[in-house]
C-alpha cells in the first residue's frame, strides 16, 4: 500500500518535467514512504520499459479511450479513474501538478473522495511534532505566504506549483508496473471537447523569452506598446502586459503576465508603467533581473527591481531605446 500517489503526466510518451518535480516533492516530504505514480492515456502499451525505470515503487497504468490527452477540457474521465484507483490503493497523500489538467482534476478528485485539498503549494514538509503534512502556498495574489496543516483526514490531495521543486528523476529505478482496470468506472460523458484552437503568435514565446518588455496601466493606451515592441525586437525579446492593460483592451489577454496569465522567467524583465501589484509579480517571480520605469517612486515594483528609473516614461523610454540601439 503506497503512502504517496503521484498523478503523472506524459509529454510525447515520456514523463513530463512536472512529474519528476512531484517525485522530488514526495521524496523531500516523506523520505521513507512508498511512492506510486499513475499515468493515464488511451494506450500506454509503450510504458512498461519507459515508465518502469522511474525511481518509484509502483507505476499504475490507467487506460481508456476517454483518457486520451487527459480528457482535456472536460476532465471527467480522469477524475473517475483516479478516484477508483485511490479507493483501491488508499494512499495517504495524492500529489498532482497544478497544470491545466491538475488544477481541474485535483480538487474534483479530492471532493469525490471526501479528502482534504491544498492548492498551488510551493513547499511541503511533515511537521515533526504532529506528524502531519504542512504545506506552504502563496495567497493574496502572492502578497503573502500561508502555511496550512492537514487535520488528519484519511486522504489528502496536494496540488504542487510547477517549477517549485527541482526534478530528481534518474533512470535506473525498477518500479512494479501494473495496469489498473478503468472500464467499469468511467461513465457516460456529460461534456465533450468540440474543438481545440491554438492562437499562435509571431516572434518569441513569452514563456521562453530571455528578455521580456511589459507595459501596464501607466502607459495610458494601446499605442505606446509599439515602442515596447520596438525595444523587444532590439533585444530579441517578447512583449508582455499587465492584467490592467489587457482588461482595458490595449493588448490581447494572451500577452498577460501574472497570477492568472503567463508565468515568465526571463534573464531581463523590463517593466514600463507597471506598479507591481502582487498578482502581477506572481507571474514574474522567476525573472532574474527586473528593471522598472515608473513615475511613482513608492510603487511596489521598485521593491522587486534591481534597476529603477523614477519619472515620465514618455521621456525616459525613447531615450533608453535610442541608446540601446546605438550601444
Amino acid at each position, binding site marked *: 500500500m503506497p503512502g504517496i500517489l503521484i498523478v503523472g503526466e506524459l509529454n510525447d510518451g515520456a514523463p513530463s518535467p512536472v512529474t519528476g518535480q512531484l517525485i522530488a516533492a514526495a521524496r523531500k516530504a516523506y523520505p521513507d514512504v512508498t511512492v506510486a505514480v499513475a499515468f493515464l492515456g488511451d494506450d500506454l502499451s509503450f510504458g512498461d520499459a519507459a515508465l518502469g525505470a522511474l525511481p518509484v515503487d509502483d507505476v499504475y497504468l490507467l487506460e481508456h479511450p476517454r483518457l486520451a490527452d487527459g480528457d*482535456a*477540457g*472536460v476532465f*471527467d474521465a480522469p477524475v473517475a479513474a483516479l478516484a477508483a484507483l485511490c479507493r483501491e490503493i488508499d494512499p495517504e497523500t495524492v500529489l498532482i501538478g497544478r497544470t*491545466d489538467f491538475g*488544477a481541474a482534476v485535483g*480538487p474534483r478528485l*479530492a*471532493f469525490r473522495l471526501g*479528502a*482534504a*485539498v491544498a*492548492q*498551488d503549494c510551493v513547499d511541503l514538509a511533515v511537521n515533526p511534532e504532529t506528524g502531519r503534512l504542512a504545506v506552504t502556498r*502563496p*495567497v*493574496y*495574489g502572492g*502578497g*503573502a*505566504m*500561508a*502555511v*496550512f*496543516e*492537514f*487535520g488528519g483526514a484519511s486522504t489528502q490531495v496536494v496540488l504542487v506549483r510547477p517549477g517549485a521543486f527541482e526534478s530528481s528523476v534518474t533512470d535506473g529505478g525498477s518500479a512494479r508496473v501494473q495496469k489498473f482496470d478503468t472500464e467499469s468506472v468511467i461513465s457516460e460523458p*456529460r*461534456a*465533450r471537447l*468540440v*474543438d*481545440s*484552437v*491554438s492562437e*499562435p503568435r509571431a516572434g518569441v514565446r513569452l514563456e521562453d523569452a530571455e528578455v521580456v518588455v511589459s507595459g501596464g496601466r501607466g502607459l495610458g493606451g494601446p499605442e505606446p506598446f509599439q515602442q515596447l515592441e520596438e525595444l523587444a525586437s532590439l*533585444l530579441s525579446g517578447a512583449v508582455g502586459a499587465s492584467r490592467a492593460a*489587457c*482588461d482595458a483592451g490595449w493588448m490581447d489577454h494572451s500577452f498577460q503576465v501574472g497570477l*492568472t496569465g503567463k508565468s515568465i522567467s526571463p534573464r*531581463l524583465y523590463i517593466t514600463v508603467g507597471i*506598479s507591481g*501589484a502582487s*498578482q502581477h509579480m506572481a507571474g514574474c517571480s522567476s525573472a532574474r*533581473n*527586473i*528593471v522598472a520605469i515608473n513615475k511613482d517612486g513608492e510603487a511596489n515594483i521598485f*521593491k522587486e527591481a*534591481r*534597476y529603477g*528609473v523614477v*519619472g515620465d516614461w514618455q521621456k*525616459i*523610454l*525613447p*531615450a*533608453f531605446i535610442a*541608446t*540601446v540601439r546605438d*550601444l
Partner: protein
Amino acid sequence: MRIAVCVKQVPDPETPPSQFKIDEAALAVVSPPGVPPVVNGFDLNAVEAALRVRETLAGQEVEITVLSVGTGFVMDVMKRPLSMGADRLVLVDDPSLAALDAVATVKVLAAAIRHTGPFDIVMCGRQASDWDQATVPLGLAEALDLPCVTLARSVQVQDSSVTVERVIVDGHQVIEAQLPALITFSNELGEPRYPNLRGIMAASRKTPETLTLEDLEITASDLEPALKLTRLFVPESGQECEFIEGEDDADAGRRLAVRLREAKLI
C-alpha cells in the same frame, strides 16, 4: 432559465502593497482603514456572463440569483451584482462563516444552492483574490453532481446544453456540456459592466434574502476545517533597487541603457 452566480466579498486586491498588513498572531490580513472590501473580480466576470446570457436569450425569462457565504457583509458592496442587473441576492450570513476552508465553504454553498434552486447553470469566478484557491467551484460541481467547465471566456446557451470557450495557455478549447452545468469564468471574458443609475436605483430597493445555517440544516461540526492555517506572513524580497538618475528623464533613460550594458544585461 434560472442562473445562480456565486460571489465572495474579499479585501480590495488593489490595496497598495505598502498598506497591505498582516496580523501574524491573528493569522489574518488587516484591512487598511477606509478601504472597503469588493466583490471578487472574477465573480463579477461571472455576473457579467450571466447578464450576457440573459441578453442573448431575449424573449425567454432568465432569472439571475447571486449567492454568497460569509459574514460582515458590506451591503453597498454586495449589492453591486444587483445594480449590474441581477435579480436576487441570497446571503448566508453567520459569524462562524468568517474563515472557512474550501471543504466547508462547498458544504454551505451547495446547501444554499439546493435550497434556492433548482438552477440550470451555476456560474463562479475562477478563483478568489484573497486565498487564490480555485477549489470551491470544482468542489461545488462535485457536491451538486454537475458537469464542470473551468476558465470560460464566453458561453452560449442552447436548449439543453452550453457551449463554452475555455482559455488555455496558447489558445482556447470549445467545450459543450449538458445542462445543468457549472462554469467558472476568467477575466478574459471582458470587463464587467458598470452599473447605470437605473440599476443602482433598482438595487437600492431590493432587500437581500438571508439564510441561516439552521435553514440549511448545517451545524458547527460540519464546518471543522480539514486544513488548518498555522502561519501567515509577507515574504521579504531582499532585493535592493539601484535607482538611475540623470539631468532629466531622457538623460536617466540613456544612463539606464549604459548601466544595463555595463552589467552585461543587454
